[in-house]
């Protein structure tokens, strides 16, 4: 059962209205561990990714507390420690209080945190540009009960557990986009045999993983764009992409030599070397996202919306959030389509998965193109 539900749902709607990418209830595990079985040390009520002006994202956390006895400044200091550990830039503490000391608010502000009383939240939102929250935020992802349904989809199938845990926690603690992208691919390959496209929770799970892959791919495209803008030479670009995907030149060469030895030991040869499955398609996808790295950051929003639409058995991706994003960012839905097509084919999920996702995304694209 999710606690402080109303506050969190208000914060969630605020993020959706601001066109931020939200995720609720992120479990935080120790960064390093010596024990074989580690348990979560805390959780974040709501984490939001804010698209940057030059591509990529900055992170914002919401901490929601309804208990009247909570000390505001204590929550701020706790949240600041957590932000530091996770590399988060800004945060909001939403508290049920009648009064918060102004100087405590000032201390919070200096640490990049807004201290907000629950009763102030509507005006606070309005001041930050969210005037008609309901209308702006109409989104398939705005109900907490749907998040609960998505995040507990593994209860009946233990094979899905690593994917769910990654979605609830692992992805958000990875600091390198390339590593996050590789893990999304790996996990989809791991669970592919379990996925039944007729089950809405499972469709939502794989599409949500595609949304996370999309965030990582956008980060990777943004990094390569910063290196080359639009690379003219295929050889140079392909090599930079491979090397970036494995943490730089030294790390790549070390892993690649081990990979080649393993391949050789099994009597095969792979002249291309270490990469991700469907390399040509992947390379094309990242190169395509480099054409518009800022728009690429919005593809994940479309896929998140699609995941919840499928979870709710909606037959058309017609939420205001999906439509306004795809109208304002004309490549977002295109990238969502090409990203999902790549990852579902490369990880060999049942073909209906790609086909169901494509049908809805193509309808959305057609709507947004004709709406202009």
């Amino acid at each position, binding site marked *: 059962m999710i606690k402080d539900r109303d506050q969190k749902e208000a914060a969630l709607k605020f993020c959706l209205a601001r066109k931020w990418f939200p995720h609720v209830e992120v479990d935080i595990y120790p960064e390093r561990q010596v024990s074989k079985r580690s348990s979560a040390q805390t959780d974040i009520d709501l984490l939001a990714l804010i698209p940057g002006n030059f591509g990529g994202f900055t992170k914002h956390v919401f901490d929601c507390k309804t208990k009247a006895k909570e000390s505001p400044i204590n929550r701020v200091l706790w949240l600041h420690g957590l932000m530091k550990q996770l590399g988060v830039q800004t945060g909001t503490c939403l508290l049920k209080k009648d009064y918060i000391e102004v100087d405590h608010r000032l201390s919070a502000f200096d640490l990049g945190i807004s201290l907000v009383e629950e009763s102030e939240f509507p005006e606070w939102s309005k001041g930050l540009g969210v005037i008609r929250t309901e209308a702006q935020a109409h989104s398939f992802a705005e109900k907490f009960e749907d998040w609960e349904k998505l995040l507990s989809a593994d209860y009946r199938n233990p094979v899905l557990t690593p994917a769910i845990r990654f979605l609830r926690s692992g992805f958000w603690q990875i600091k390198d986009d390339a590593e996050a992208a590789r893990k999304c691919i790996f996990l989809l390959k791991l669970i592919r045999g379990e996925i039944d496209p007729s089950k809405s929770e499972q469709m939502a799970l794989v599409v949500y993983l595609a949304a996370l892959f999309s965030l990582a791919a956008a980060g990777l495209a943004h990094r390569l764009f910063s290196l080359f803008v639009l690379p*003219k*030479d*295929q050889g140079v*670009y392909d090599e930079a992409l491979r090397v970036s995907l494995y943490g730089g030149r030294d790390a790549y060469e070390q892993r690649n030599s081990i990979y080649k030895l393993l391949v050789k030991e099994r009597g095969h040869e792979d002249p291309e070397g270490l990469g991700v499955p469907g390399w*040509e398609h992947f390379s*094309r996808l990242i*190169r*395509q996202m480099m*054409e*518009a790295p800022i728009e690429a950051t919005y593809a994940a929003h479309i896929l998140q919306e699609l995941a919840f639409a499928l979870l709710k058995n909606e037959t058309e991706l017609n939420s205001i959030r999906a439509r306004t994003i795809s109208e304002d960012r*004309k*490549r977002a*839905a*295109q990238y969502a*389509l*090409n990203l999902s*097509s790549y990852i579902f084919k490369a990880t060999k999920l049942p073909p209906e998965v790609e086909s169901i996702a*494509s049908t809805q995304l*193509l*309808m959305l*694209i*057609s709507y*947004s*193109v*004709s709406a*202009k």
Partner: protein
Amino acid sequence: MTDSIKLANEDLAARCHEIQVGLSQLEVPHFDTLPFIGMCVRLALHLQGLPPIPYEQVRLVATAFLDIPPTSVKRVILALAEIEFVRLAQEGSTIKTVVPDVPYYVNLYRRLGEYASSEGLNELEALTLDVVQRLSVSPQSLDAIRNKTNAEATAINTVFEIGSQGGYARVMRARGKDIAISPTYFSENAESFAQAVAKAGASSVQGVLQALQRHQGVPLSEVTRTAELGGSRLSGDQISLLQTLAGEGAVRPPSISTTHSGENFFLFTPTPHGGAMSPTKRPIFEKAMALVSSVRQGQYLAKAYRIKYPYALISSFAEKRFLNPNSEALEQYRNVVHMGVATLARNAYSGRATLKLIDTKENLEALDMAKALLSSGSVSGLEVDDEAKFALEKDQTYAESIIASNHLRARRKVPLSAELQDQLELALGA
């Protein structure tokens, strides 16, 4: 003996594209797959990297700018969808929106070449491609083409009849011989190339061109002085071909005059034409040649400060947008300034000048091309018509307005001179 060549898929698609651009709106009853693949390449090149586009807009632009007949556009789009270069949003059989997912670099050509192979080419198409591929490397004698392809004389004649109408393959007379040449690659100085092939043979010309591709922009004086090009010894005929190209051609190579080394010509492989180079890219390519000649001047013919690493210098210029003050810059970069790539700021006291880039999209593209010329000797992406791409990227109203004005321009007639008008009126008894 037949010396038939098996075209790589990427070459197959590239040649189909050049031939189709040459044929433009000419319909050739002998051809089926070849022009169709050419149209697929052409449309794919222009859809590459673009956002979703209404199908009607694609149809308009493809017809008006890319010479794809209106009745063929749908077939081309469906083929591109089949090989997953585009996704289509359809209502029943009506295509509403085209969502591009076109591969980059050589993968575009390779995949379309594979598709062409699977579709199959008829004998005349295969022979045409074989001939055009040979001529893309160097002009050759017609006899050699006949022997190597082992094709019947009538078939070869048909290839050149269609080729000369399409402007991608023709036969010239030189020294009493028939020389086959591709205007796509040798539109400039065609006469000189034909003479050189007739005199010294195709392999000699090919040797020079290959060496020149590895050292684009080398000064003629340097080649004449050392009688070698990039470590390869040149024969007298080969040097004389280079001298002819520098001195007598329809389009002269870039030259730079300096007080210390006089006038020098800088040699490049012939500038592509037609399907291999869009007219909108030509001025940018000429700027790139000017940039390369300038750094080659500093590399081979410097007065005091020699450029050791031309590629690094151009890369640094592209990155910093300026080059440090240099006493030789005024003369060395004069052409670059005349072509609007950069300005020179002279320090009155030291006499040194700083080269400053004029920061435009075209100039940055010219710098990229210059880097490609210095590193690999060839430049990719020259086939794309920027106007067509722009019309696809903008909304349909914009495309329609551009198309309407183009259409009017195409129909405009040259007015008669007053004198001719008088003569006509007299003749007609007005």
